[in-house]
């Protein structure tokens, strides 16, 4: 299509003009990046930033980004598996939300069918309350939850997503039936935030990035973070130190197609390891307040398996998985 070509040419011309290309250091000539989401979202941004950095560092020659969005990535995944099988120069972005979507949508294909390459970034979730709320800590919230689970309304993203999972995990750990939780799902970031700022709900769950500005401005109070230990720059106690054994990481990663050769797999792991070490990548992460959580190859594969089992457990508790 004309428009698409036009965009790609303008983009490419801009890049060529602005950045020196070091042809000698290229690892892969022509990289295909497949995004199982519409342009603009987290996985798409991950792909586009990756693309910029890989080119700027001269690690790849040319590249192409394809978006096939829908249903938490479960529309794109089968296409990636079918169309790119065996191709050693293709990568797909994805993340924790996709693992959940595969389970709740009863998808015929899953992430064990592709080749895990590396976890790149991630975000811990925080629980916030409006500044005017009486709730000062997670303990207060849990006490309210235990007294009357229905009276605590939680604002977050769509049902079955990471925000809902955290609400379910906290309920479970507090020995409250996750199904009794009054979870109010909002589409998109803005609406949930508006409900919190307008004091319409008891508390909210989302990635730290969504809330950071409002917490800094004193409109919201962060009462807990889902990290294993306190995170630099975020003034919120962990859920664990407040007595509940809960942690949750909303990670983003890249995968290669099924049935690629071992050499190709090693080359892709190397490529991303080099990218992760580059200053350009770290600067881009800092700009977007993404946490650097690099985990590559076999370690990532093991982590994926473990996390999938855990997510299935949470979703079963919420009545969303069989």
């Amino acid at each position, binding site marked *: *299509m004309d*428009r*698409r070509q036009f*965009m790609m040419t*303008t*983009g490419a011309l*801009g*890049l060529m003009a*602005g950045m020196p290309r070091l042809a000698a250091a290229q690892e892969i000539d022509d990289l295909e990046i497949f995004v199982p989401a*519409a*342009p*603009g979202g987290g996985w*798409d*941004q991950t792909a*586009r930033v990756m*693309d*910029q950095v890989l080119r700027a560092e001269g690690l790849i020659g040319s590249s192409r980004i394809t978006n*096939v*969005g*829908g*249903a938490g990535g*479960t*529309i794109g995944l*089968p296409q990636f598996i079918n169309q790119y099988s065996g191709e050693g120069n293709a990568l797909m972005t994805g993340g924790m939300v996709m693992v959940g979507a595969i389970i*709740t*949508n009863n*998808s015929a294909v899953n992430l064990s069918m592709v080749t895990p390459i590396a976890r790149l970034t991630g975000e811990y979730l925080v629980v916030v309350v409006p500044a005017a709320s009486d709730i000062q800590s997670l303990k207060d919230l849990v006490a309210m939850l235990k007294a009357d689970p*229905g009276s605590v*309304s939680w604002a977050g993203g*769509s*049902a079955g997503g990471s925000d*809902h999972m955290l609400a379910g995990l906290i309920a479970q750990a507090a020995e409250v039936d996750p199904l009794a939780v*009054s*979870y*109010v*799902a*909002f*589409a*998109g*970031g*803005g*609406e949930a*935030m*508006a*409900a919190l*700022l*307008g004091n*319409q*709900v008891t508390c909210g769950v989302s990635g730290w*990035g969504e809330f*950071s*500005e*409002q917490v*800094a*401005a004193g*409109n919201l109070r962060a009462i807990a973070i889902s990290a294993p230990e306190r995170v630099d720059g975020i003034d919120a106690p962990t859920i664990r130190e407040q007595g509940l054994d809960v942690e949750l990481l909303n990670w983003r990663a890249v995968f290669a197609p099924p049935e690629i050769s071992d050499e190709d797999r090693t080359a892709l792991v190397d490529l991303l390891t080099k990218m992760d070490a580059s200053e350009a990548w770290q600067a881009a992460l*800092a*700009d*977007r*307040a993404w946490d650097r959580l690099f985990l590559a190859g076999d370690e990532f594969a093991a982590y994926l398996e473990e996390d999938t089992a855990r997510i299935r457990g949470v979703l079963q508790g919420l009545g969303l998985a069989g």
Partner: protein
Amino acid sequence: MDGFVSLLHGFSVALTPMNLLWSVVGVTLGTAIGVLPGLGPALTIALLLPITFQVEPAAAFILFAGIYFGAMFGGSTTSILINTPGESATIVTAVEGHKMARAGRGGPALATAAIGSFVAGTIGVVGITVLAPVIVKWALMFSPADYFALMVLAFVTVSAVLGSSIIRGLTALALGLLIGLIGVDLQTGQARFTFGQMSLLDGIDVVIVCVGLFAVGETLHLATRYRRGKDEIIPIKGSLWMNGQDWARSWKPWLRGAAVGFPIGAMPAGGAEIPTFLSYFMEKRLSKHPEEFGKGAIEGVAGPEAANNASAAGVFVPLLTLGLPTSATAAIMLSAFQSYGINPGPQLLTTQPDLVWGLIASLYIGNVMLLVLNLPLVGLWVQILKIPMPYLYAGILVFATIGTYGISRSVFDLGLLYGIGILGFIMRRYDFPTSPVVIGMILGPFAEQQFRRAMTISQGDMSVFVTRPIAATLLALAALAILLPLVVELRRSLRARRAV
């Protein structure tokens, strides 16, 4: 007055020759994608995001603002000329605008849309400058119960587009409600009416339904009625330009449309469609020529177009003051901010005044640019209507197909487009109005979600709809809108009986 000083500073940032050039590029590109059904400003800006690595923030946002407003305008152009809304916010424009075009008054319809967009956009920008903090406080007071009451009011206004037969209109509306339910339910994560089809999990895109019903359905309908040799070309009657009466009938709807559009656009769950429905309903009620509605009333173009553009400006209020993106386009602009390492939020105005006021000024420049570029082109655009029907409608089908495939590159969606097209053809053939389908599809799920949110928060207590002042007021307005005409009618018939 502080706001105006800052705005002047914003103009000094935005008004450089280079930035004006970006504005021209944005507005032109925006108009082009607005004309293509399916390609929206959100998608275009998302694809242009990499540009933020290369240019100054002000230049990028001027480009994006141009695309945003250009797309709005492009969408109304196709709605009026070929009955194909490129955007869901221009559906109502198609109702009266296309009738005007078919009556040979495409020129004035386009002109009132362009000037109305400009007037409303200007009011919107002034609104951002002066009222932003007040509007935001007011918008945050809306709870799900209040939104539901607003939806009830919107549903009442639907009666204005139901057409002559209430039964047919309600059937079409119910069909829209059904289509709107397809997909994964937000509140429970369960799939509804998807029949195991993965491609249906996200529901059916409203643009596909619009294009299918309006463009494909209409084209099929005309094709079945086409007689070879008897080619009727719509003659352009009267002046291309608006006459005195057009002006007299347009200026009030522009102002009223802006007054409805801006605050609703600023509400976190307001959207751009609802103000256009409300404005259309209001104009039909207030018009001195209500009999012209449904046949090409200029008020029915002027009001909704103004409402649509004012709400587009309203979206920037929560974005710039709170960092709340309330539309897809705003969400993408937010990520553009982030790629400059700027986190929009309550402190944005104090930490990045250049950028914020530069952006606001560029919205204004975009509006002026659109008017300057498009008014002289009205004459050119209406020439489209002179294309012989077979070529024109074949062209529409090609554009509809490319546009739909372009959004998702899904063959399934193409099948859906033509399936809905055939449905549209049948509806058209048997005289069912098609716009209630789209309206039902937008309002239905919205009302349902807000109702269920309200119920979850109140733990099932229905009294929230009458104990909250905003909800109660809106519901009372809705009741009034239904009852008032009935009472008036009753009185008239009683009086008539007494006279006999």
